[in-house]
C-alpha cells in the first residue's frame, strides 16, 4: 500500500512537469502549429526559471520570500518559453518556413541555450548553483494545511503536492473552458481546423496563431522550471530534462488535444516514467520501462485511427502553413 502511495506521489511530481509541457503544446497545436521545439523550450524554462529564483535570492538575501521566488521563477520561465516560441512563430507564420524543420531547430537551439545558461551560472558562481534551504522548501511545499496532508492515504495522494500541480490543474480547466465555451476558443479551433475558412470568416488568423503559440510555449517552459525546482532539488541538472519535451509531444496525441485529459494523462505517463525506480522487476532493464509511454502513445494512435472518429483527430491543418493566395 505504501509503495503504491509513494508511486502515485512520485508520478504526480513528474507528471506535473509533463502537464505543463503538454498543456502548452495543446494550445499551440490547436492553432495549427506543430511546435516540435518543446524539448528546447522546456530546457530554457528550466535554466531561466532557476536563474530567476537564484538571482532573486542573491539580491534579497535572507529577506527572500518563498511565494515571491515562485512567482519570479514562473514568470522568467514563461518569458523564456514565450521568447523561444516567438522565434518559431516568426519563422513559421510570417516567413512560412517548414514547421517540422523549424521545431527541430528550436529543440536543438533551446537545449543549447538552456545548457549554456545553466553552466554559465554554475561556473560564475564557483561550481555550484543552488537555492537556500528556505526557498528550496518553499518550492516543494504543499499549499494545504498539515491536518489534510496527514489524513492517511488520501492526504498523501490528494493534498501533499506542490503548488505547481494544483496550478497546472487550474490551467487545464481554464484552457478547457476557453476552448469549448468561449468565442475566442471557437475561433482558435477554427484556425487550427481550416485556416482558409477562418480567414474567409474574417478571423485574424495570424494573431491567433502567434498568441496561441507564444502563450503555449510559455506554459510549456514552466514545466522545465518545475522539474529543476522540484525533482532536481533547485540545482541545475543538465541531464534530467532530456526527453521530457518529446514525451510532452507524445502526450498531446495521447490526450487527443483535450486539456482535461492532460491531467490524468500526464500522471499516468509520469508513473510509467518513474516506475523503474519504484517497482523494479528482476532482469527487466530500466530502458524497457522508459519506452512504455511511447508504446502507449502508439497504441492510442492506432485505436483512434481505427475508430475513425473525426472528433478525436488532430486539428486538420496541423503542420500546414497558410498563404492566402495559394489555392
Amino acid at each position, binding site marked *: 500500500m505504501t509503495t503504491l502511495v509513494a508511486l502515485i506521489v512520485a508520478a504526480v511530481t513528474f507528471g506535473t512537469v509533463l502537464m505543463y509541457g503538454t498543456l502548452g503544446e495543446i494550445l499551440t497545436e490547436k492553432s495549427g502549429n506543430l511546435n516540435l521545439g518543446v524539448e528546447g523550450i522546456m530546457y530554457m524554462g528550466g535554466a531561466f526559471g532557476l536563474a530567476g529564483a537564484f538571482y532573486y535570492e542573491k539580491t534579497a538575501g535572507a529577506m527572500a520570500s518563498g511565494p515571491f521566488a515562485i512567482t519570479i521563477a514562473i514568470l522568467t520561465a514563461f518569458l523564456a518559453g514565450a521568447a523561444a516560441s516567438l522565434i518559431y512563430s516568426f519563422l513559421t507564420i510570417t516567413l512560412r518556413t517548414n514547421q517540422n524543420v523549424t521545431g527541430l531547430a528550436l529543440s536543438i537551439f533551446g537545449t543549447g541555450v538552456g545548457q549554456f545558461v545553466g553552466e554559465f551560472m554554475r561556473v560564475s558562481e564557483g561550481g555550484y548553483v543552488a537555492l537556500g534551504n528556505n526557498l528550496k522548501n518553499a518550492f516543494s511545499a504543499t499549499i494545504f494545511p498539515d491536518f489534510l496532508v496527514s489524513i492517511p492515504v488520501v492526504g498523501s495522494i490528494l493534498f501533499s503536492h506542490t503548488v505547481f500541480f494544483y496550478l497546472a490543474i487550474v490551467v487545464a480547466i481554464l484552457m478547457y473552458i476557453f476552448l469549448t465555451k468561449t468565442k475566442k476558443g471557437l*475561433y482558435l*479551433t477554427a484556425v487550427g481546423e481550416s485556416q*482558409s475558412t*477562418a480567414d474567409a*470568416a*474574417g478571423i485574424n488568423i495570424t494573431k491567433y496563431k502567434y498568441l496561441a503559440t507564444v502563450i503555449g510555449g510559455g506554459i510549456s517552459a514552466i514545466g522545465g522550471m518545475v522539474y529543476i525546482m522540484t525533482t532536481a532539488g533547485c540545482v541545475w541538472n543538465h541531464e534530467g530534462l532530456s526527453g521530457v519535451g518529446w514525451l510532452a509531444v507524445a502526450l498531446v496525441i495521447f490526450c487527443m488535444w483535450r486539456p482535461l485529459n492532460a491531467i490524468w494523462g500526464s500522471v499516468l505517463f509520469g508513473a510509467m516514467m518513474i516506475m523503474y525506480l519504484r517497482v523494479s522487476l528482476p532482469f527487466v532493464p530500466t530502458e524497457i520501462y522508459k519506452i512504455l509511454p511511447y508504446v502507449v502513445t502508439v497504441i492510442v494512435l492506432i485505436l483512434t485511427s481505427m475508430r475513425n472518429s473525426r*472528433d478525436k483527430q488532430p486539428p*486538420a491543418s496541423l503542420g500546414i502553413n497558410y498563404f492566402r493566395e495559394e489555392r
Partner: protein
Amino acid sequence: MENKCAIEMKGITKRFGKVVANDSIDLSIYSGEILALLGENGSGKTTLMNMLSGIYQPDEGKIFKDGQEIYIRSPREAYQYGIGMIHQHYKLVEVFTAAQNVILGLDDEKLDLAKTEGKVKEIASRYGFDIDPSMKVYDMSVSQKQTVEIIKVLYRGASILVLDEPTAVLTPQETQKLFRILKNMREDGKAIIIITHKLNEVMEVSDKVAVLRKGRYVGTVETRNTNPQALTDMMVGHAVMLNIDRPKYEKPEEKLIVEHLTVLDQEGVKRLDDVSFTAKTGEILGIAGISGSGQKELLEAITGLYPIKNGSIRFVREKGKEVELMGLPPKRIRQEGVGMAFVPEDRLGMGLVGSMGMTGNMLLRSWRKGKGLLVEKKEPEELAKKIWEELEVVTPGTNYPVRRLSGGNVQKVLVGREIASQPEVLLTAYAVRGLDINTSYTIYNLLTEEKMKGVAVVYVGEDLDVLLELSDRILVLCGGQVAGIVDARSATKEEIGLMMTQFVTKEE
C-alpha cells in the same frame, strides 16, 4: 410590381496579368428576381461575382447600391452591404456543428449556441430548408453542407445572394429542393444570382439571363422570351477563324478502342457512363464538354490511374493484334510495350516535379533504363538540351527548377518529354490552358506533327474554336456520357455547344 434595382455594376474590368478576365461589363441585379449568369468556362462569370463579394477589386468600373457608389474591399464589407456569396468550394469547419459554423466570424454576437440554433431553425423554416443546427458538418451530405453555407449568408442578413454553380454537386432531387428554396427567397424580396452553364436550369429557375462570353457582356434577356437554342448562340458566339493548319493523314487505322467504359468515383457517383469510341492513327480526336463532364476521368482511366467499373480499353498493335489495358496499372501498361504518353491537366502536380530541373524531369521517364546502382544521366541531359533548343524553352539552364518557369515553358517541357518517348497514343488534357497565343500555336503544331507521324492524339480542350480547327473528329461529353461524335470539318460551334448542354435536359 416594379422591382427595385439592388446592385448595379458599371464598366467593370478586371485583368490578371495580360489576361482580361472581365472587359467593361455592365450588370444590374434586381430585388425579388433570380438572375442566371450564363457562360462557358473561363468566360469570367466567377471573376465578376468575386468582385461583388469582395474577393477581388475591379481595375476599372463602379458598383452602385441603391444609387450610391460603394467600394467592397473584403467579404466582410460585402456582408455589410448585404451581399453574400456561396462558393463552389464550401468554407466550413468540419468538426463544428452547423450553428458553430454559422456564428464563426460574427464578433458582435455572444457565444450562445442555443440562441444561434433557434435563429437558424427560424431561417430554415422560413425558406423551407431542412437542417439540424446541432449536426456536425462531417456527418453532412454535400447538399446539407450547401444549406449551411446558404444559411450562413442569410444569418448575416444578406439581401443579395450569389451562388456559384450551386447544382454542380447536387442530385436532381436535391437540385429541385434548392430551386424551391431559391423561389421562396425570391418571394421574400431577395436578389439572387446563380452562376451556371446548365441551360435547363436557367430555363427552369431564372427570371432573367445575363450572358458572358470570353470576359465580355453579351446581353441580358428575359427567360420567358428566350429558348435554349438562342441562349447557346449567345454563349458560344460566332465561329472565329484561327487558321490552325490541319493536314489530312493518308490511311488512319484504329489504335485505341474504348468500349462501354463506366467509372465510379469514391462516393459511388458515375463519372463516366458507358463511353465508347475509337482513336485512330494520324488523327486528332478532340474531346469537348463542360468542365467536370468526365474528361479527366476518361484520360486517367485509359492510362490506368483511375479504377474502372466496367468496360474495355484495347490497344491495337501492328497486324491488328489487340491488348486489353483495362485494370492494368501504368507500369504494366508500359511493360506491355504500349506506347502511351499522357500530358495531364495538373502540370506541376502530376506531370513534372516542380523543384527538379529539366534533366531531372526527363529522368522520370527513363530511370528504369539505367543499369547498375547509379542512374544514367547522360541521355536525359541530352534530351533536356534538345527540348530546350527545339522548343525554345526559356530557362537559365537544364537544372533550373521547372516550378520557376512560366506556364508556357512548363508545358513545353512536359509535352516535349512526352513526345520524345515516341508514343503511339498521345493523350493531352487542356494542353493550352493559361498559355499565350504563340505558345498555344507551338503546341498545336507539335500535336499536328505527331498526328502526321501516325500517332493517335486525344486532345481534351475547352475552347470550341480551337477544337473545331485542330481536331479531325470531336467527341462531346456531357455528364459522363457521350453526347455524340462529330466530324470537326463539318460541325458547327452551335451544334457542339448544344450537345454539351442539351444532353442534361434529356436525362432529367
